[in-house]
């Protein structure tokens, strides 16, 4: 119960979402991205974002207007660099959702 309460309080405070159960926890972030209109848009965005230092994986969803980024363990990601990559893909960054 104590562990559960601590986990819930971590989520409520806006702490980074981590994939539990992995050997080293990986931070997952989710952003709004506007301008994608079909699956063909995914690859170009994922390619540019995936090159950013610290990004282990980037997955786009045109219909949900979402970009999900998994960082490498212990890595950081500059928000400015991410927004620049999204714009170079000809899309527009929205809010960070997670």
């Amino acid at each position, binding site marked *: 119960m104590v562990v559960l309460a601590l986990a819930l309080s971590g989520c409520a405070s806006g702490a980074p979402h981590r994939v539990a159960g992995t050997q080293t926890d990986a931070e997952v972030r989710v952003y709004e991205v506007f301008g994608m*209109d079909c*699956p063909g848009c995914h*690859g*170009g965005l994922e390619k540019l974002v995936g090159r950013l230092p610290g990004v282990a994986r980037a997955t786009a969803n045109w219909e949900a207007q979402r970009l999900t980024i998994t960082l490498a363990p212990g890595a950081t990601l500059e928000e400015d660099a991410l927004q620049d990559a999204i*714009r170079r893909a000809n899309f527009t960054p929205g809010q960070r959702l997670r």
Partner: protein
Amino acid sequence: MLTIHRAAPWALAALVLASHGASAAGISVDAGLTPPEDRWIIRTQLRTMRRADDAGSGMTTFTVPVVLVYGLRPDLTVLARLAYARRDAGGASMNGFTDLRLLAKYRLLRLNTREFTIGLAPVLSLELPVGQASFGSHTWDGSAGIFLSGRHGPWGVDLNLSYSVNGLGGPDPDGTDPGDQLTVDVAFARQISLDADAAGALAPVLELSYARTWPDKEDGADTPGTGEGTVLLSPGFKLSFSSWFFEALLQIPVWSETSGTSLPRRPGVILGIRLLH
């Protein structure tokens, strides 16, 4: 007597000035949107075009264009297109390469919001007279166009307006001054996701295309049997994934105005794939 339409090279050029962008709503209509920086797209198709009289006598042209697209910058896309064609007419066949077309598309406007996307892009192209036999124009040709796109949720519309000046450097070696061409195209599409992750989508497409080719001139006079106007209504579909597309389009002539003994167009088909990296 069968008349090979003098405007054939221009018609082929219009055929293969096809949509290249991954985000185009249409298949033969391009988007006013530019692909991401460093995005590669390779596209090839099998296109059929038939001209025949009411008795069914005529000619069939098969064209396989290959288009290479690269997002040089977010606001600048460059393209190169070359096609191989074969024409069967009167029991005889001829084949060869078309002219090489080089294009550049510039992102003049791109507005992405949660509700909609709008794009406006001018396009310039130059066609090099390297084509073989009657598939090449033997002249340097240029075109300018403006492409407009709108997206709202799964719905998309593209509008293309292009004007081609054929024979930039004057008449061809035979002394023929080729006629210019105007094209106006519009495409509508609706994306339908195939799975919860939106990794695949099927899009029904409907296009409406108008092309006007002015008559060729020789010694200042219109060349008989050249010049035409055509309206095509084209239903089709696209199956798209992150790194490849498959597309099919049926082009149905719903209106045509031909000159002299020129043969009217009959329905044609486009089948194609795109690879994206």
